[in-house]
């Protein structure tokens, strides 16, 4: 497929992203660059200093709502992006409403409780919809432990082992790799496997 064909095909789909932190913001940027035009993003957080080591925000956006800052940054990549943002902590009914029209859902939360709520709600209401999950990306190095496991309609990106802690914080490179693994998996789901 040529770049033009790829963009043409991707422009027909809608991607939902739950969370606009290290995974969500970088995954969104990558997908917009690749040619996704319709996107839903939900997050309730504001940009803080500690986010700048890995998230797609800038120092002059400290204190801004993440969804607003991300909308601004993504529109700088593609001014024609059709982005729907929701500044809200997601609960089951909102998840169902928000993601019903999405072809693929990216799970990009940081807290495991929220991850579980999102995944269970999606599986319950949309049992066949593909959901691309990030799990295990704290720390640095160990490139080759990062992988994608496929369990039915769940695509799990990460090492599935390293949990964040004060001694093992999330940092740009590893979080960015997993965010881009998620974006890459979304492309494979929408475009089909590369021949």
């Amino acid at each position, binding site marked *: 497929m040529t770049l033009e064909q790829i963009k043409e095909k991707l422009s027909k789909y809608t991607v939902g992203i739950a969370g606009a932190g290290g995974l969500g913001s970088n995954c969104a940027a990558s997908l917009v660059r690749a040619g996704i035009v319709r996107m839903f993003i939900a997050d309730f957080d504001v940009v803080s200093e500690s986010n700048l080591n890995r998230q797609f925000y800038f120092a002059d956006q400290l204190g801004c709502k993440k969804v607003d800052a991300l909308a601004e940054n993504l529109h700088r990549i593609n001014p024609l992006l059709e982005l729907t943002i929701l500044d809200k902590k997601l609960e089951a009914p909102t998840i169902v409403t928000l993601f019903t029209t999405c072809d693929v859902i990216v799970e990009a939360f940081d807290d495991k409780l929220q991850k579980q709520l999102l995944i269970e709600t999606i599986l319950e209401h949309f*049992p066949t919809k593909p959901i691309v999950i990030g799990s295990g990306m704290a720390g640095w190095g160990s490139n080759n432990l990062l992988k994608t496991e496929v369990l039915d309609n769940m695509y799990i990106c990460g090492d599935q082992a390293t949990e964040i802690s004060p001694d093992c914080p999330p940092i740009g490179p590893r979080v960015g790799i997993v965010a881009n693994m998620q974006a890459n998996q979304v492309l494979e789901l929408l475009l089909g496997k590369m021949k």
Partner: protein
Amino acid sequence: MEILLNNRPEVIEGNLLTVNELLAVKKFTFRMLVIKINGELVKKDNYSNALIKNGDNVTVLHLISGG
């Protein structure tokens, strides 16, 4: 009995197991899980009564914080 656990065939002793029993047999100690039996979600409240039988396709995903 033989089941498919996360895409891998596994031989487990016994003919019927609850989800909790399977987690104990496999020594899965993670607390934040997403579990499916034959593609259907099993919620935490049902881990003690949802049954796994010979030939079932079981998915156990454990979730860890970070993102």
